[in-house]
Every structure is written in structure tokens, then in C-alpha cells.
């Protein structure tokens, strides 16, 4: 591939950089101690009341306390439950819709954590989903609410709207060019947080970052969402720019990165989750820059989820040891990403 000036980004705007948008609402029942302070009987009663009130909207309802750790890990990898619920929390439960795009965690840090997920940059739509689910619930549940502090939550960092909105962003360009640190630092000053999806700060695995609002009180939901969206778009603009510079000014480096990632993913026999996330991220960048043409982005995005430990084990239907997992992961990656015979003849150069 030559270093000709690149045409403006020719990849799908919404899915290229912002992978998904999420909104979660923290809610508690009026006059009932928060989960950490409630007795088992009280927590069980909260669970019963919330499950009943949400049965029509989120009909897949599962008790998490006492469930298999693999099941909880699977739900965590799917973003349906929080890290907090990975531990066996007493009287905890999850209620989901069939598409797994809406869910309610019960007896997490708060009685209810309502959440909605949308692909791409769709913060407002995710809020509308979560808000509608909240409307359904509040017909039957009496929430803890104060006219000055809004929705009352176990942690004062959630009080007010109880809303945490976040965008999952893939930012390899900014990380590779060493431009992520100032962004991480700057966002903290304007009330936003950046966290790695896997790992903290710029050491985030697979260059995946979650950008979210930090403040929940003193602003209406619409304003919080608009501010966040503006910043997410700005970061996406910087990322697009960084990717274009990588392709134009560091052509060989970028081509090499993508080619090596493709090579390893299609030939390795053992692959750890960490290595897989890193190589898939580099491959994803290569695809979106037009350097790798035979694999599409959706395929990579699906693999980013499927190569995680619990997903692998659920797919094969049994628990796997660490090396077995790495072998299964490598096998799955090879079979999903291998070259098709037809293309091979076309590309043969020897």
C-alpha cells in the first residue's frame, strides 16, 4: 500500500469509534434500608417487589445469589451486571429483556440499577429506553426521593438524577500517538470520567475506553447527556484525525501493526485474552483504515465479546483450564478469521 494522501475517513462514523452507548439509573425504595444495611428478609422482599413490578418489561429474571460463578462472569462480560455483582452478593438478581439491551440489577449497591444499552453513539436513545423502563417501575414502586437532592442513593456520588451515561470508545489512534493522557486529564476537570474497559488509564487493554458523566446532581438529564455527547464527538474527531495521521505519516508502522495482528490471530495456537484483545484492536484499526480488506469490523466486534473467558466456556459447554481456554480462543480466532481459499489464489504472489 502506498502513502498516497488518504480520502476522508471512509468508515461508518457511528460504529467505527463509538461502539456503544449506555445509561444506568440508580433507584431505591422509600423507607427501606439500602442493600448493604438491610436484613436478608428485607432484601428478599425488595427483590420480590422489583421482580414483580418489572415482569412484563424485563421478563428474563434470574436470582444471582448462589448462582454459578461462570454464569455471573458471563453476564459481566455482556455488561449486564456490574463488577460488584461478580461476587456472590446476597439476594441479588438480574432482570433482562430478550434482546439483552435493557436490564435491572437488584440489590447491587442500590435496590435497583436500571440500564439500557444501544449500539453506536445513541446516548439520548439509551436514556429514553432507561427512562421508559423507570416509568413502568415507578407505577408500582415508591422511590426514595427528595425535592432538593433528587433520587437518594447509597453513595452520594449518584444522588440527584442517579444517572450515569457512558460511551464505549475505541481509541487506538490517540493511544498509539501518545495523545491520550492530556484527554484523560482534561476530562476530569469538566466533570467527566474516562476509564479503560479492561484496565485503567492509557494502559487500557484493546484501546477501549468508557467515557461517562461524573456529576449527577444540579443538572437535568438532558443537559448531562448533551454535554457528554458533545465531548464524545470531540474525542471521536481527535481519534479520526489521529488515525489519518497514522496512515499518512506512519504508513509502514501502521501497516505492520495490522499485518502482524492479522498474522498472529490467524496462526497462533495459544492466545491469552489480553493478547487477543490487543491484536483484535490493532486488526480493527487496520480494517477501518482500509489496510485489511477481507475481514469486516462487525466480525471483529463480535469476537471481542466471544473470546472472553466465560463466553468461550459457555460456547464449548464446560469449564476450561487456563491453557485450554487459550487454545480454544486461538482455535476460534483462526477459524473465524482464516483466509478463504478463493481469496488465497487471488492474493498469491510467489
Amino acid at each position, binding site marked *: 500500500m502506498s502513502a498516497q494522501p488518504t480520502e476522508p475517513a471512509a468508515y461508518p462514523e457511528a460504529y467505527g469509534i463509538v461502539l456503544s452507548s449506555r445509561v444506568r439509573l440508580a433507584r*431505591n425504595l*422509600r*423507607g*427501606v*434500608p*439500602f442493600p*448493604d*444495611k438491610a436484613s436478608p428478609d428485607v432484601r428478599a422482599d425488595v427483590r420480590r417487589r422489583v421482580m414483580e413490578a418489572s415482569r412484563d418489561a424485563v421478563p428474563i429474571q434470574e436470582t444471582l445469589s448462589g448462582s454459578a460463578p461462570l454464569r455471573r462472569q458471563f453476564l459481566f462480560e455482556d455488561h449486564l451486571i456490574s463488577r460488584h455483582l461478580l461476587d456472590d452478593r446476597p439476594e441479588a438478581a438480574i432482570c433482562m429483556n430478550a434482546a439483552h439491551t435493557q436490564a435491572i440489577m437488584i440489590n447491587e*449497591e442500590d435496590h435497583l440499577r436500571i440500564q439500557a444499552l444501544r449500539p453506536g453513539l445513541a446516548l439520548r436513545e439509551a436514556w429514553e429506553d432507561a*427512562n421508559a423502563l*423507570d*416509568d413502568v417501575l*415507578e*407505577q408500582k414502586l*415508591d*422511590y*426514595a*426521593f*427528595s*425535592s*432538593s*437532592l*433528587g*433520587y*437518594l442513593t*447509597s*453513595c*452520594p*456520588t449518584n*444522588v*440527584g*438524577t442517579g*444517572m450515569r451515561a457512558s460511551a464505549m470508545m475505541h481509541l487506538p489512534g490517540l493511544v498509539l500517538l501518545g495523545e491520550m493522557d492530556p484527554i484523560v486529564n482534561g476530562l476530569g476537570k469538566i*466533570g467527566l470520567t474516562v476509564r479503560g474497559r479492561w484496565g485503567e488509564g492509557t494502559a487500557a487493554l484493546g484501546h477501549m475506553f468508557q467515557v461517562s458523566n461524573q*456529576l*449527577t*446532581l*444540579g*443538572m*437535568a*438529564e438532558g*443537559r448531562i447527556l448533551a454535554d457528554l455527547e458533545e465531548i464524545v464527538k470531540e474525542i471521536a474527531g481527535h481519534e479520526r484525525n489521529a488515525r489519518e495521521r497514522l496512515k499518512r505519516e506512519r504508513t509502514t508502522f501502521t501497516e505492520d501493526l495490522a499485518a502482524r495482528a492479522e498474522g498472529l490471530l490467524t496462526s497462533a495456537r495459544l492466545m491469552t485474552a489480553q493478547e487477543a484483545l490487543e491484536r483484535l484492536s490493532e486488526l480493527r484499526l487496520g480494517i477501518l483504515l482500509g489496510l485489511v480488506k477481507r475481514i469486516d469490523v462487525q466480525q471483529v466486534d463480535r469476537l471481542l465479546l466471544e473470546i472472553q473467558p466465560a463466553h468461550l466456556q459457555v460456547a464449548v459447554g464446560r469449564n476450561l483450564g487456563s491453557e485450554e481456554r487459550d487454545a480454544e480462543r486461538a482455535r476460534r480466532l483462526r477459524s473465524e478469521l482464516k483466509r478463504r481459499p478463493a481469496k488465497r489464489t487471488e492474493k498469491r504472489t510467489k
Partner: protein
Amino acid sequence: MLCQNCHQNEATVHLTQIVDGKAEKFHLCEACAAQKGIDVHADPVDLGGMMEKLKNQLAHLKEDLEAPRPSAGPSVCPSCGMTRTEILKKGRLGCDRCYETFAAEMLPVVVSLQHGDQHLGKVPRRSSVRLKNSVEQARLRRELDKAVAGENYERAAELRDQIKALPLDEGGPA
């Protein structure tokens, strides 16, 4: 590692000296170090004393936290049994009543973490008219402040009328 000076004994004294802005490392045995006037047994920092001081400070702090404050209201939430010390330690409240019980401590914390102290977002539909109106009033007041600051007096007058029209004394308990 052998002593850099006598090349016979094991080096047990390791120092870094900064000369003309350059760090130089020395590795000496105890005898050679003593010869060069380095007192290896001196305790340059009185760690024991420092720990003692820190302990005292912590004890005072603990007393301060646990001491009942006459102005600060009750130290236990009558609704869930959460104590003030527990809240300060965990950074979590025990129930919705805790926000009232420990208002004196919690409000400054909330304000330091958040954007002001007034909710301007969604209000549950089931809440009383009074409660809904009170959040709406706060929202309109904020707009009124903005209108006045921007010298938009026509809009300010509209907002003032809207605020007046919101009754706060109707409906059930907040």
C-alpha cells in the same frame, strides 16, 4: 557484591552521593564505611518517633470523629441504625432517612462532589404535587437567574409569573 574499597569483604553499606548534580553509587563493607566516616548505625530519620506522633494524631482524629457534636444532631440514624462514624468511614449511607439525619455532614460532602445542591432532573410521577412543583420551581428560578443575568427582562417576568403560579401547599406528603 564485594566492597569497592578493600575488595575483600561483602559490601553491606550502599549509598548514593550526589556530586555536581550527578548521582554516584558506593558499595562498601562496614569497616571501610566507618573508616570513611560514615556512621552506619546512626538512624538518620527517627522512624519510631514519627510513628508515635502519627499514632497520636490518628487517635485525636478518631476522637474528633467519634465525639458527639452538639450542633450536628444525632449520631445514629433512627431508621437504619447507621452511625456517623460508619458513614464517614465507608462513604455510603444506610437509607434514605440518613440524608436528613446526617444533613449537617452530608450536605457539604454532596456539594463538594456535585454541581450544586439542587436536583433539576426527573421527578417520580407518583410524588406529590408539592414535591413536583418544588423541583420545577428550582428549575425555573435557575432560568430566571440566567434571564436576569442576560438582561432578558421580558423572559424574566414570564418566569417570575410561572414560579408564582406553582402552588407549594397542595397535595400529600412530600
